[in-house]
């Protein structure tokens, strides 16, 4: 059977499963549509949250980023897991007790202001739409590689599939579909990793393999990797970082952003009780950690395998001939994500760090004239089974897994967007008397519109996926998280303080990002070059969300203390969310 047919079976089979689940779990009421009827078991909810949370960025990109950056990119590992500690202790149980459908609804009620609710809706929509574009682009790339279609065609297929199960099933359908998607994506991620860990270290558990001995050389794997990359002029894989302030702030931005992303928060509205919301956050992190503990092993092992493929006799010997390159390089060359240019015309592939000044002399002595192979970081996980010569069914599996990751996150985000439009905008202000049926229809229409917009933007992305995702995290960190936290932990912060804080956090973050990455991400319009020398105190635009969050807190407290205290019934509302007793199921009224 051809590789194409195998991919088709795995991808097609998993899609048929998702759609079948959506039909079985059709939502009939707004409550089933928004919060799955509030009756999802915490372990199951944890699994669905994990699928919701782990997107194309976690599945496809992250290991590639760690492989390229080594220790310096550990920020993603800590940042994208540490946010769950904040969620479990600072937000989830209290928002579950509050018991409404959406995040803006809490902000609007707690800060007794329609304007606050509008600002929250705006932050939510900007954060979610920018994030969903990245998912659609990721799905498009995976489709085009594995189904051998144009990437635009791949995007449209992805849009149609998400449309079918998200629009029909709502949160109820999405929850059960996401449980299935989690199973598919975790199997797809770990199976190749186990094979590769066995090949390199003899240890079947990748997280242990990472710190084990490399069988071939007899030295620890990470030490071997340090030696190989050093011989090619790269920084040591385990080398420390000098700009610690930026590393701390970037990790903090990712953590706060995780806790502030609306599609993750609404998952905790779907469990029956406050105590379940606490357990659910723990289970979510367990299921996320299965991938996040495997990813650093995949990263280091894939980097070593890649360099061994190019330098079969070791990095100090000759590289392979271009004509003898393995099939996976040929396959990925067709997508343009691997490029080769024979700069010194010796017919061999030299892969090394040509930006290192201290390595220039060695390169000249060896007759090298610049790095000749450019490998896009994003292909690493997808190409991993091919690099390690694993059987072809593993390649089909990884295709299905990457798509499951992208589509489950896209569906969760689209649900958050549609509930903000139909519940917060239409029912909350434009037409409060809308019937439940009418609201459900409005939710489905707004989801359909969001899918069309996201698919279209996915074909014409406003910037690199990483930039877009950074904006989504920055907005969530700087606007939504502080407002929610102050709403629960302070009785003194009032409507004026909350609105001023959200706007100050949002604007400072967005402007700082635009200054370096271009206004509205239009290339060439940036005010300063995006290099460390230009950054304020060495803080990169991607790390600024944490600073924006601090600005939000300071402004909100300053404005609140200069104006009147919130009315008595609001202070009582804050009291009531703090104690689990008396929580009903989530309602929209």
């Amino acid at each position, binding site marked *: 059977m051809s590789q194409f047919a195998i991919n088709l079976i795995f991808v097609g089979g998993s899609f048929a499963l998702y759609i079948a689940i959506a039909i079985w779990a059709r939502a009939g009421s707004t409550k089933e549509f928004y919060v799955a009827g509030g009756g999802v078991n915490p372990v199951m909810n944890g699994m669905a949250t994990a699928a919701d949370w782990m997107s194309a960025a976690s599945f496809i990109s992250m290991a590639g980023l760690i492989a390229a950056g080594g220790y310096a990119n550990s920020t993603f590992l800590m940042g994208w897991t540490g946010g769950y500690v904040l969620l479990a202790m600072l937000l989830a149980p209290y928002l579950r007790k509050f018991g409404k459908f959406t995040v803006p609804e809490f902000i609007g009620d707690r800060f007794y202001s329609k304007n606050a609710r509008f600002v929250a809706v705006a932050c939510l929509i900007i954060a979610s739409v920018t994030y969903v574009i990245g998912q659609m682009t990721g799905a498009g790339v995976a489709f085009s590689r594995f189904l051998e279609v144009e990437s635009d065609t791949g995007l449209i297929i992805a849009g149609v599939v998400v449309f079918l199960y998200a629009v029909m099933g709502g949160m109820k359908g999405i929850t059960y579909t996401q449980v299935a998607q989690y199973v598919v994506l975790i199997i797809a991620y770990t199976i190749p990793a186990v094979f590769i860990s066995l090949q390199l270290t003899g240890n079947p558990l990748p997280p242990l393999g990472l710190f084990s001995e490399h069988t071939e050389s007899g030295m620890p794997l990470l030490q071997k990797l340090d030696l190989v990359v050093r011989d090619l002029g790269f920084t040591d894989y385990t080398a420390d970082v000098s700009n610690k302030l930026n590393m701390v702030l970037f990790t903090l931005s990712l953590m706060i952003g995780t806790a502030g992303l609306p599609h993750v928060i609404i998952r905790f509205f779907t469990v029956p009780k406050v105590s379940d919301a606490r357990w659910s956050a723990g289970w979510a992190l367990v299921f996320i950690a299965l991938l996040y503990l495997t990813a650093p092993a995949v990263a280091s092992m894939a980097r070593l395998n890649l360099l061994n493929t190019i330098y079969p006799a070791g990095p100090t010997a000759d590289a392979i001939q271009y004509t003898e390159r393995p099939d996976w390089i040929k396959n990925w060359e067709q997508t343009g994500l691997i490029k080769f240019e024979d700069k010194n015309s010796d017919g061999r592939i030299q892969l090394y760090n040509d930006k290192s000044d201290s390595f220039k002399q060695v390169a000249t002595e060896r007759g090298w004239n610049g790095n000749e192979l450019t490998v896009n970081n994003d292909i690493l996980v997808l190409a991993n089974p091919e690099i390690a010569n694993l059987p072809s069914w593993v390649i089909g599996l990884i295709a299905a897994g990457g798509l499951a990751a992208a589509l489950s996150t896209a569906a969760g985000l689209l649900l958050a967007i549609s509930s903000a439009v139909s519940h917060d905008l239409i029912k909350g202000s434009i037409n409060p008397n809308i019937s439940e049926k009418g609201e459900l229809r409005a939710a489905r229409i707004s989801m359909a519109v969001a899918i069309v917009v996201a698919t279209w933007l996915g074909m014409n992305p406003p910037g690199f996926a990483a930039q877009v995702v950074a904006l989504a995290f920055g907005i969530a960190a700087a606007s939504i998280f502080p407002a929610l936290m102050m709403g629960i932990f302070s009785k003194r912060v009032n409507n004026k303080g909350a609105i001023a804080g959200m706007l100050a956090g949002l604007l400072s973050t967005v402007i700082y990002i635009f200054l370096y990455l271009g206004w509205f991400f239009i290339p060439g319009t940036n005010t300063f070059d995006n290099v460390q020398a230009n950054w304020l105190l060495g803080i990169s635009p991607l790390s600024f969300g944490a600073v924006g969050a601090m600005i939000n807190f300071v402004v909100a407290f300053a404005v609140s203390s200069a104006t009147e205290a919130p009315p008595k019934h609001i202070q009582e509302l804050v009291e009531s969310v703090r104690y*689990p007793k008396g929580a009903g199921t989530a309602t929209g009224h």
Partner: protein
Amino acid sequence: MTEHDRNAAAYWSANLRLIVGSLIVWALVSYGGGILLRPLLSGISVGGTDLGFWFAQQGSILTFIALIFFYAWRMNKLDKEFDLHEE
């Protein structure tokens, strides 16, 4: 202040103490062990590298899981002790 209010206030400050304690550990393993204190821990070697690298790529994630389950277990117990749990 009624008996009920005093009970509720005691519950809330117990919750806050638990959160502060947990977040200190949370910050120590990630920002401490994984980033800022890494040079200090460089003498302790773990499988071909140092303890700071292990915290950054594995240790902090494992600690986060333990923290959330510990917090959930303690809080669900406190809910009952203070009679503020759901029926």
